[in-house]
C-alpha cells in the first residue's frame, strides 16, 4: 500500500489522458442514449415535440419548393389562350393558327377543337351530365399560343394579347403571365414564411431541449455534487448533459425527416390527380440531400445548444464564487 500510494501521485500520461477523454465521450454518449431508451414514453414525448416543431417548417419548405418547380415551367412560357368566336369553325381556326405561327413573336399556336375541349371539361369538371342536357357543344374553339417573348416582358406580352384579341375571329384573349407572377409572389412569400416559422420553431426546440435537460439536471443534483467534490472537472460533469441534448436533437431531426417523407408520399396521389387535369406529369420532390442534412444537422445543433444553455444556467457547482 505505501508503495502504491507514491506511485499514484505521478500524473497520468498525456496519451492516457486523451484515451480517457475519448472513452468518457463514448461512455457519455452510450449512457445517455441508454437512459433515454429506458424511459421510452418520456423520451418519445420530447422527441415528438421536437420532431413536430421541425417538421412544420420542413414541410412548408417542401411545399414551396414543389410550387416553385411547378411554376418554373409556366414562367418560361407565358401562354396566351385565344378564345375564338362561336361562329368560327375548326378549319378556319387551323388556318388562323398557321398564319399566327408565321409571326416572329409567336412560337406555337395549337388548335384545341370543340370536341377536345368538351372531352376535357366532361372528364374533369364532373358536369358531363349537364352538358348532355344541352344537346349541342357550347364551347368555342381555342388557340393555345406560346409567345417567343420572355415572360417578364409584360408590356410586349400585353400588347400581343391585345393585338390577338382585336382579330375579327377572336372573342377574347387571356394572358397567363399575370397569374404566374402572382403565383411566384405567393411562393416567395411562403418561402419567407418558412424562414420565419423555422426561426420561431427552432427557438421552441431550444426551449424543449433546455427544459428537459434542466429537469435531468435537477434529478441528478446529488450526483453532480458528489462528482464535483471528488474532483471531476466542469467539462466532465457537463458532458453527459450535452450528449443528452444531442440525442434529443438527433432523434427529433430524424423523426421530423420521416414525418416529411411520409407526408410527401401521401401527397403524391392527390398531386398526380391534379397534375393530370393540367395535362402534366408532376413528381412531388422530397427534402433532397442538402435540406435533409440541414434538417438533421440543424436539429442536432439545436439539441446541443439547448442543453448547453440549460447546463450553463442550472449547473451551479459546489464551491466558492
Amino acid at each position, binding site marked *: 500500500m*505505501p508503495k502504491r500510494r507514491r506511485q499514484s*501521485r505521478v500524473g497520468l500520461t498525456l496519451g*492516457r489522458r486523451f484515451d480517457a477523454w475519448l472513452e*468518457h465521450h463514448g461512455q457519455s454518449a452510450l449512457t445517455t442514449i441508454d437512459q433515454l431508451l429506458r424511459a421510452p414514453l418520456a423520451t418519445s414525448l420530447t422527441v415528438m415535440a421536437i420532431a413536430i416543431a421541425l417538421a412544420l417548417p420542413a414541410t412548408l419548405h417542401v411545399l414551396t419548393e414543389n410550387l416553385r418547380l411547378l411554376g418554373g415551367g409556366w414562367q418560361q412560357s407565358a401562354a396566351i389562350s385565344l378564345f375564338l368566336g362561336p361562329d368560327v369553325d375548326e378549319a378556319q381556326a387551323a388556318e388562323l393558327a398557321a398564319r399566327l405561327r408565321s409571326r416572329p413573336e409567336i412560337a406555337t399556336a395549337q388548335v384545341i377543337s370543340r370536341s377536345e375541349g368538351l372531352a376535357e371539361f366532361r372528364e374533369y369538371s364532373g358536369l358531363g351530365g349537364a352538358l348532355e342536357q344541352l344537346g349541342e357543344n357550347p364551347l368555342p374553339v381555342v388557340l393555345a399560343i406560346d409567345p417567343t417573348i420572355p415572360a417578364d416582358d409584360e408590356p410586349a406580352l400585353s400588347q400581343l394579347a391585345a393585338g390577338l384579341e382585336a382579330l375579327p375571329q377572336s372573342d377574347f384573349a387571356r394572358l397567363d403571365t399575370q397569374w404566374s407572377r402572382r403565383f411566384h409572389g405567393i411562393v416567395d412569400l411562403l418561402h419567407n414564411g418558412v424562414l420565419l416559422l423555422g426561426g420561431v420553431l427552432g427557438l421552441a426546440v431550444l426551449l424543449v431541449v433546455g427544459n428537459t435537460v434542466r429537469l435531468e439536471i435537477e434529478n441528478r443534483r*446529488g450526483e453532480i455534487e*458528489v462528482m*464535483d467534490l*471528488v*474532483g471531476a472537472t466542469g467539462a466532465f460533469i457537463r458532458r453527459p448533459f450535452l450528449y443528452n441534448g444531442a440525442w434529443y436533437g438527433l432523434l427529433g431531426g430524424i423523426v421530423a425527416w420521416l414525418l416529411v417523407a411520409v407526408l410527401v408520399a401521401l401527397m403524391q396521389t392527390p398531386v398526380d390527380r391534379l397534375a393530370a387535369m393540367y395535362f402534366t406529369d408532376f413528381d412531388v420532390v422530397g427534402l433532397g440531400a442538402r435540406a435533409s442534412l440541414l434538417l438533421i444537422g440543424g436539429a442536432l445543433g439545436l439539441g446541443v445548444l439547448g442543453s448547453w444553455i440549460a447546463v450553463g444556467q442550472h449547473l451551479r457547482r459546489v464551491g466558492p*464564487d
Partner: protein
Amino acid sequence: MIVFEHVTKRYPERGDALKDLSFRLEPGEMAFLTGHSGAGKSTLLRLIGLIERPTRGQVAVNGRNLGSLPRRSIPYHRRQVGMIFQEHRLLPSRTVFDNVALPLVAIGMGRKETGRRVRAALDQVGLLRYERVLPMTLSSGEQQRVGIARAVVARPPVILADEPTGNLDPELSREIFGLFERFHEVGVSLLIATHDLDLIANLPYRVLRLHQGRLVADSGNW
C-alpha cells in the same frame, strides 16, 4: 501539509464562523478537530476542500496557496483531498463499486486499474463482498465505510472527515477510527472533525479544539 494563517470566515447571515485562525498540520499527521456544533469545524474543513474561500487570511494545502487557485483548478485540488461526510453522500442508484469508483472515473483512470483499486479500497474497509449491492441495503456503519473507501480510492495525500461517526454506536466508531489509523500509518495526513470526545481521549493524536470560531486548545502545537 495544511497551513492556516489568520483565517477568518464571515457569513453575511450569521457573522464570523472562524476568527483569526492559525495552525499547521504536518505531512502524515493525524489530528482531531473538536468543539460544539457551530464552533466552526465544518467551515474549517470546507475551506480546505475549497468548497468555501476565507474572508481573510490564507489557507495552503500541500504547499499550494488556495487563495491564488483559479476556479478551473479547483477539481485538481480536490483530487488531493479525500472528503468523508457524516451523511455519507453516496449515490443511491449506483452500486457500492460504482460509488467508490467515482473519483477514479473523474480522473479518467482505465477500467482495469479502476477495478483493481476499487476492490483494494473495499477490501481495506472490509466490504469487498458488497461491491455489487446498492448502498441503501447496507447499514449506516457500512455506508460510512463505503464513503471512506471512496475518499481513499484515489490515494489522496490528505483526508478530511466531518463527523464520520456521528450516527454510529461506539463499537462501530472505534472501527472507523481504526481505519483512519491505518491510513495514518501509510503516510496520509488526516483531519477528523468529531464530538466523540470519549473515543478520542484514549488515542495518542493531536486534538484541536474550536470554540466560537477560535482555536482555544491545541494538544500538540509544534
